[in-house]
């Protein structure tokens, strides 16, 4: 399965398709697509009705807060009316509002294509990547707020430090004691194994999952779905070898590790990269139990 490939030829698409058979994540994507299509149809009908009312603008209600500016210290919602264009995303609308009405409207964004993970926000009550969320699929007015359970810094910007700390707490780097001999020798990995870790490597550190998880909200030390997923990515990589795997399991088994997860599935629902987070967490729990049973 592939996303856009800039310079590929016909053959390469084939190789790609062969290498990576449809996985669970892909199924989920298909499911989401279907749902989105249904929603879209519904919206289109509504949009038609609306057009009759001459409503080609979108109403955005945006959370505003700045601890340094008098008058903004008390959080409030500002309303912006943005002309709707086909294909407009929440990010497009925010940028329009900022560039047209209020240049102090603040939010993080960069790639506009769901790879940099900067713009996870709380849109109409759900964690979404603004750049990957079509306005046409949302009910109006569109309410945009910063991610819940993170410290608000200003407008839609939240403090990501805690999230980064959790990500970095799981030793998120490849380790092995089993290096191949030659400099140019690869550490071979079979296709199944690469396939197994494929979805877990897609995380873009957006923090949506962490924000959606009630356990993470209650227990600040809980590693959280993204960090556990990161640990999964390495623990399941055969190239690291058994010894390191033991160490990995110890990390995720810490008190605020996998056992905290209560399979809420919220993380899996909101992940913009369709990573089956709950599944990965559950698999690690089982690995850990198996591992411990050996010593009982």
């Amino acid at each position: 399965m592939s996303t856009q490939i800039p310079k590929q030829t016909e053959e390469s698409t084939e190789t790609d398709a062969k290498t990576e058979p449809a996985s669970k994540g892909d199924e989920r994507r298909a499911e989401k697509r279907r749902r989105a299509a249904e929603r879209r149809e519904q919206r289109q009908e509504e949009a038609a009705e609306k057009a009759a009312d001459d409503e080609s603008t979108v109403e955005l209600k945006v959370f505003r807060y700045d601890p340094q500016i008098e008058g903004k210290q008390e959080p409030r919602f500002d309303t912006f009316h943005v002309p709707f264009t086909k294909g407009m995303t929440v990010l497009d609308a925010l940028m329009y509002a900022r560039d047209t009405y209020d240049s102090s409207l603040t939010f993080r964004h960069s790639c506009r294509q769901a790879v940099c993970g900067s713009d996870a926000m709380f849109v109409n009550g759900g964690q979404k990547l603004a750049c990957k969320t079509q306005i046409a699929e949302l009910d109006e007015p569109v309410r945009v707020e910063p991610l819940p359970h993170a410290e608000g810094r200003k407008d839609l910007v939240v403090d990501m430090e805690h999230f980064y700390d959790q990500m970095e707490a799981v030793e998120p780097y490849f380790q092995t004691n089993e290096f191949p001999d030659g400099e140019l020798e690869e550490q071979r990995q079979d296709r199944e194994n690469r396939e197994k870790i494929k979805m877990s490597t897609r995380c873009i550190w957006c923090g949506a999952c962490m924000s959606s998880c009630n356990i993470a909200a209650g227990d600040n030390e809980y590693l959280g779905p993204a960090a556990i997923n990161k640990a999964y990515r390495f623990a399941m990589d055969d190239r690291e070898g058994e010894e390191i795997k033991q160490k990995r399991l110890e990390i995720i088994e810490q008190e605020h590790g996998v056992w905290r997860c209560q399979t809420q599935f919220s993380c899996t629902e909101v992940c913009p990269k369709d990573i089956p987070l709950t599944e990965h967490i559950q698999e690690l729990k089982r690995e850990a139990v198996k591992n411990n049973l050996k010593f009982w």
Partner: protein
Amino acid sequence: MYEHDVVVVGAGGAGLRAAIAAQEAGADVAMVSKLHPVRSHTGAAEGGINAALRDADSWEDHAYDTMKGSDYLGDAPAVEALCRESPEEVIRLEHWGMPFSREDDGRVSQRPFGGLSFPRTTYAGAETGHQMLHTMYEQVVKRGITVYDEWHVMDLAVTDEDDPAERTCHGVVGYDIQSGEVSGFRANNGVILATGGMGQVFDHTTNAVANTGDGVAMAYRAGVPMEDMEFIQFHPTTLPSTGVLISEGVRGEGGILYNEDGERFLFERGYANNDGELASRDVVSRAELTEVNEGRGIEDEYVHLDMRHLGEERILDRLENILHLAEDFEGADGLTEPMPVKPGQHYAMGGIETNEHGETAIGGLYAAGECACASVHGANRLGGNALPELIVFGKRAGRHAAGEELGEAKIETGRSGDWQPADYEFGIEVGETGRPDTAAADGGAVAADAESVVGAAADRAQERVEELLSRDGRNHAEIRSKVQETMTANVNVFREEGRLEKTLADLRETREAYKDIAVSDPSRTFNTDLIHTIETRNILDVAEALTMGALAREEFRGAHWRKEHQERRGCARAWHLAPRPLP
């Protein structure tokens, strides 16, 4: 003031690799980046990394392909370094755990790519850049390299000798986006610019919003020559509203381009009678724009890329990702309607002139990655050649800056004789970039010590911030979009002398307007209004250098099309564009 041996500006692929290399060479290194490293635009690359890994392949073949693709404008020593070292760098990434796609025997997969004589594009699914970026960031975490993230570098701290070639760079000045603090970063051994692309010079680009060419502009203001700025790669199929790339795979599978009248214009209008949709990028981009310019574009903006006739099954099997892209970013359903596409800026072949060790003409200043031009891409870049450039030249710059001996460089930098943009007489006086804000305060202080150079630079930057925050004036958005409009209208795929000159005039006017720019948000925290204002000046500088290059290069070569000069000039070597002399 912060102090390190090596300061790396930017934490994309090139910056991360440079930092790791410098650290391995024993230097105390810090990265300063306006985005958290994993947010860098390297993460958007999908296709792959070219490397001659297989026995049947050789780096010489890779070098040959690269040279040919560059329209023979690449510099041989740089191309050699790229192709020779790419395999070991790719394997190093593999040893760092990068999850490449695999063959049955467990080796990394490679695939064919346009312009390559051997399928040597190593890839990780359709997210090669993402995997590469994250793998390298993981190594940075492992090594505990200092990262100042969300620090925007405003300018370089460079001494101000009259001859730029005699100047020395002692550090940079950064602005902490979170706290609003302005601080100098002193670099004892060297500063490495790795600030990536400049796509925001155009209004339609596959590049990130953060790709504003900051490094290029900072170096330009400091007096470093720019090289090959006029060579910009445009991709023919990007989504109109966001610039998200639609892979050539769609056309490879049989997707068809239609104009508003439903004509398959590549054939029916004779742009590419043989290859049709599969003609090279430049050809297709130009054809699309001609259609739009002649009034046959849809909504006067784009053309249609239709894949419906391939059938749902085949689309879902081979091109499912395209469906998601079109739906997520354009709200279009590729199964039931044609997808809107238009050409978009994709890659800058040129940039800060460097040699094959990443050194620029200014002492202690290095550049690597898309912002640099060691000149491996010449007039056109081969797909899959940018990522190896990041790791090969990132590593070289990092090592060299850390003081490792890499031998005498074969490429010369800052050839003083070539500094005027060839023999071209600009019909119009170009705008004034002014001195770098951050040059040492007193003109005469040639022997100024590093500390005071950086200190003075920081003071100036601080002053500028205060001024921008306190005064009233225009908003950056207006100016930025003016630049983008004129660049897109006139310095895009098609370039005509008159319009290029008009662009210089426009830019000059915009530069005047920029003089009374102001920031309306008074906040000291996450003041993106201020950051965009600073970036807008960089966009202006880069746009100007680019346009001057386009005017000066009187030939049709690689990605550079000139109406009046449809011939390719005989001379093989590129000339270099001079930066504006300082007043």
